[in-house]
C-alpha cells in the first residue's frame, strides 16, 4: 500500500501546509512532486503534462493569492482538476432503445471482461430489475465460454450457449434473436481479449459491432495498466465507437493512474469500477470520490454506503440504542461488530477506503484480519454469561478460555483490555450524540480500538 498516489500527494500537501504563503517557487516544487507522484501512479506522461500545466495556471491566478490557507487552496485546485479530468459526474448505463439493449464488452486479454460481464448482468438485474441474457463470443481462449456459463449459473442469469466451432458474429446474432424472442431487456456480449495491434481481431470486433449495433460499447481496462494505457485506449477508441469504460481490479494497490489516462484519451465516461473478486463487486464510478481518494481524503462516502448495504440494519439499531444509553455494551455486541466487519470484506478492505494518513496510522497499530479472527475465536470460547458480564472473567476462566481458543492467556487479557477501551469510547460517543455516525461506521471499531 506504500508509494501510491494518495500517499505521495498527501506527503506533498503536508509539506505545503507548513508554509504561510504560496510563492511561484514552492508551487514549482510542489508541482514537480505532483508530476512525479502521478507518473509513479502510472498516469500517462502526456496526461500528466497537461494536468500539471492546468493546475499551475489555476494556482498562479487569484484563486490562491489572497486565500487564507494556500495549502487548502491548492488541494482544492488539484482536486477540482482531477475530478474534471475523470468526468464531472457518474454516468450510468444507457438502455434507451428497443429491447434487447445490447452491451458489447471489449478489451485486452486478462482485463477482466468475462468476470465483469457477469457482475454487470447481476448489477442490472438487482438495481434495475432487468431481464438479462449473457453470451460469450470468445471462441479462442480455452474454456472462456464455460467460464461465462458457470458465472451465469452462479448468478441465475440466462445464458445463451455457444461453442468454439461457431463464428463470433453468428453466435452474437443468434443470441440477439433469442433475446428478442424471449423478451430479454438486455443482452451482454462478452468477447475475446485482443491486442490493439492485431488487425484481424480488431476487424472481428468491428464486425460484431456492425452486426449488433450495441447501445453500449464498453472498454474494459485493468486499473494496474501502465503507460501503455494511452496507446491501447486510443487504438480501441479508433476502432470502435466506445460509449464508456469499466475499470477493473481497483481493489488492488494500484490506484487511479490508468483511470486518468483512459478517460483523457477516449473522452468517454468511466461507468463502473470492479472492487472485489466477489460477484457483487462492481460499483458505479464516482469521479469526485476517486479524486478525493487520489488526494488522500479517503473514500469515506463509499465506505458508508457499503456499511449500509452489508450491515444488518436491525442489529445496528439495537446497538445504537445500547450505545446511546451508554451501558450494556457487552462482548456479544463486540463479536457482532466483528461479524459485520467480516461481511464488509475485513479490515484490509476497509483500510483501502480510509484517507492515506488514517490508514497509515491504523497499519501502525498492527490491525490485521488475523487478529480479528483470533478475537472472534476467543469470544466463541466464552460462555454466554461471560459474554454478557465480562467482569466475571478472572484467572481460572481466562485459562479455560485461552485453552478453548488455542491461544495464550495474554491474548485473552489483550482482548479484555481492548474491549474495555472500546466500551469507554462507546460511552463517549453515547454522550456526545455521535450515535448516528456510529450506526454507519461502527463496523470499524473492534480492530481499531487500540
Amino acid at each position: 500500500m506504500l508509494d501510491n498516489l494518495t500517499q505521495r500527494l498527501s506527503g506533498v500537501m503536508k509539506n505545503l501546509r507548513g508554509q504561510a504563503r504560496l510563492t511561484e517557487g514552492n508551487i514549482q516544487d510542489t508541482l514537480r512532486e505532483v508530476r512525479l507522484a502521478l507518473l509513479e501512479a502510472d498516469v500517462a506522461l502526456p496526461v500528466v503534462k497537461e494536468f500539471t500545466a492546468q493546475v499551475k495556471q489555476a494556482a498562479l491566478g487569484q484563486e490562491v493569492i489572497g486565500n487564507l490557507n494556500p495549502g487548502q487552496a491548492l488541494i482544492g485546485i488539484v482536486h477540482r482538476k482531477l475530478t474534471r479530468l475523470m468526468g464531472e459526474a457518474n454516468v450510468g448505463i444507457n438502455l434507451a432503445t428497443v429491447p434487447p439493449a445490447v452491451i458489447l464488452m471489449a478489451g485486452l486479454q486478462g482485463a477482466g471482461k468475462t468476470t465483469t460481464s457477469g457482475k454487470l448482468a447481476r448489477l442490472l438485474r438487482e438495481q434495475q430489475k432487468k431481464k438479462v441474457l449473457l453470451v460469450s463470443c470468445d471462441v479462442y481462449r480455452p474454456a472462456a465460454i464455460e467460464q461465462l456459463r458457470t458465472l451465469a449459473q452462479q448468478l441465475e442469469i440466462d445464458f445463451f450457449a455457444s461453442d468454439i466451432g461457431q463464428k463470433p458474429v453468428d453466435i452474437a446474432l443468434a443470441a440477439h434473436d433469442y433475446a428478442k424472442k424471449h423478451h430479454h431487456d438486455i443482452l451482454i456480449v462478452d468477447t475475446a481479449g485482443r491486442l490493439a495491434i492485431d488487425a484481424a481481431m480488431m476487424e472481428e470486433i468491428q464486425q460484431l459491432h456492425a452486426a449488433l449495433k450495441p447501445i453500449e460499447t464498453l472498454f474494459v481496462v485493468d486499473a494496474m495498466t501502465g503507460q501503455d494505457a494511452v496507446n491501447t485506449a486510443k487504438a480501441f477508441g479508433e476502432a470502435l465507437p466506445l460509449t464508456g469504460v469499466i475499470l477493473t481490479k481497483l481493489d488492488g494497490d494500484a490506484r487511479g493512474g490508468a483511470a486518468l489516462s483512459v478517460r483523457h484519451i477516449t473522452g468517454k465516461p468511466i461507468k463502473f469500477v470492479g472492487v472485489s473478486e466477489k460477484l457483487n463487486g462492481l460499483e458505479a464510478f464516482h469521479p469526485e470520490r476517486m479524486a478525493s481518494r487520489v488526494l488522500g481524503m479517503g473514500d469515506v462516502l463509499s465506505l458508508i454506503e457499503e456499511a449500509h448495504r452489508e450491515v444488518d440494519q436491525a442489529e445496528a439499531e439495537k446497538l445504537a440504542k445500547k450505545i446511546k444509553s451508554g451501558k450494556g455494551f457487552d462482548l456479544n455486541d463486540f463479536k457482532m461488530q466483528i461479524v459485520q466487519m467480516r461481511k464488509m470484506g475485513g479490515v484490509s478492505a476497509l483500510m483501502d477506503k480510509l484517507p492515506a494518513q488514517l490508514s497509515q496510522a491504523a497499519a501502525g497499530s498492527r490491525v490485521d484480519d488475523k487478529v480479528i479472527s483470533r478475537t472472534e475465536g476467543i469470544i466463541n470460547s466464552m460462555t454466554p454469561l461471560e459474554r454478557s458480564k465480562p467482569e466475571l472473567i478472572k484467572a481460572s476462566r481466562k485459562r479455560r478460555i485461552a485453552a478453548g481458543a488455542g491461544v495464550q492467556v495474554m491474548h485473552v487479557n489483550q482482548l479484555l483490555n481492548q474491549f474495555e477501551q472500546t466500551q469507554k469510547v462507546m460511552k463517549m460517543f453515547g454522550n456526545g450524540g455521535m450515535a448516528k455516525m456510529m450506526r454507519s461506521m461502527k463496523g470499524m471499531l473492534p480492530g481499531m480500538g487500540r
Partner: protein
Amino acid sequence: MFGFLKKTPTDNTAEPAVADQRDLPASEKRGWLSRLKSGLSRTGSQLTDLFSRGGKIDDDLYEELETILITADVGMDATRFLLAELHHQVREHRYTEAGQLKEALAQCLLKLLKPLAQALDTGTHQPFVIMLAGVNGAGKTTSIGKLAKYFQGQGKSVLLAAGDTFRAAAREQLMEWGARNNVTVIAQQSGDPAAVIYDAVQAAVARKIDVVLADTAGRLSTQAHLMEEIKKVKRVIAKALPDAPHEVLLVLDANTGQNALSQVKAFDAALGVTGLVLTKLDGTAKGGVIAAIARAHPIPVRFIGVGEGLDDLRPFAAEDFVAALLGLGE
C-alpha cells in the same frame, strides 16, 4: 481425504518431439527475436529516431530520453539511475555525438538486466515442482500451457495441477491445455487448492514425473486472506515433498505499470518468489518495468511471452531484450 479426487488421465508418454531449444535452427530463433522486436518496436523506433537524427548531446536529448524511458514503464527511479549511468559513460568515454549514446544506453540497460537472465534448471530435483502465482488476469493458466509444451520439448514429462479452484472454469481451461499438450491434469471438482496440489505432487512422485506445474487462483496482493491462503498452499506442497516447491514463479502482465513492483514485493514477502514470467509482450506494452524491478527488487526473469502461439514463451535473454528494446541490429 482426497478420495473424491477426479483425474483426467490423458496418456503421458509424449516422447520429446522437439530437441533442446538451443538446437533450434537459426532461422527459427531469429523468427522469435523479430517477433519480440516487433512487439517492442514502438520504443525501439522512437529511440532509433532519436539517435539516428544525429547532432550533439544536450539537455533536450536527455529529457527526450527520460520521456521515452518513462513511457516504457521503466519508472522514475530506474530512469534516473539509467540517465545517471549514461551521464557517467558519456563523461568517461568523451562521447559527443547523439549516435554514440545508443550503444552506451544499451550497455547501461544490459548491465542492469543481465543479472536477471538466469535460466531455470529443472534437473536438480525429480519431480521439480513449480508453483505459479500472480494477480488476476496476468496469464498464469495460459503460461502453464506454454510451459508444459516447453518442458516437453526438452524431453521432460510434465504434470499439471489445477490449483485455481476459485475462478469459474479455470479447471476446464487448464484441462484444455493439458489435452492440447497430451499432459495429465490433476483436478478436483471443487475445494481446497492446497489439497489439489498436494495430490498432484504425490501423483508426480508415484509416476516419476519430471516437472509439476501448479496453477493457483489469481489474487491481488491487498487481499490478506487470499495471500494467507497461498502461503498455506506453499506449506502444504512442502508436506507432500520436502524442499518443494523448487521454484515459485510470479506471473506479471507486461501491460502493468509500476504496480508490478508492489506485486513483486508483496508476493515475494509471502512466498519467496524465485523467478518471474513476463507475459503479453506482443502488444504495444514495452516491458520497461523489468528495469524497475531489476533496480528495486531484483528477481530472475525466467521466461517472457512474446505471442499467442504455444511456442511463444521463451527463456529471457538480456541481450536480445535490450537489442529489441533499442532497435539494435541482429
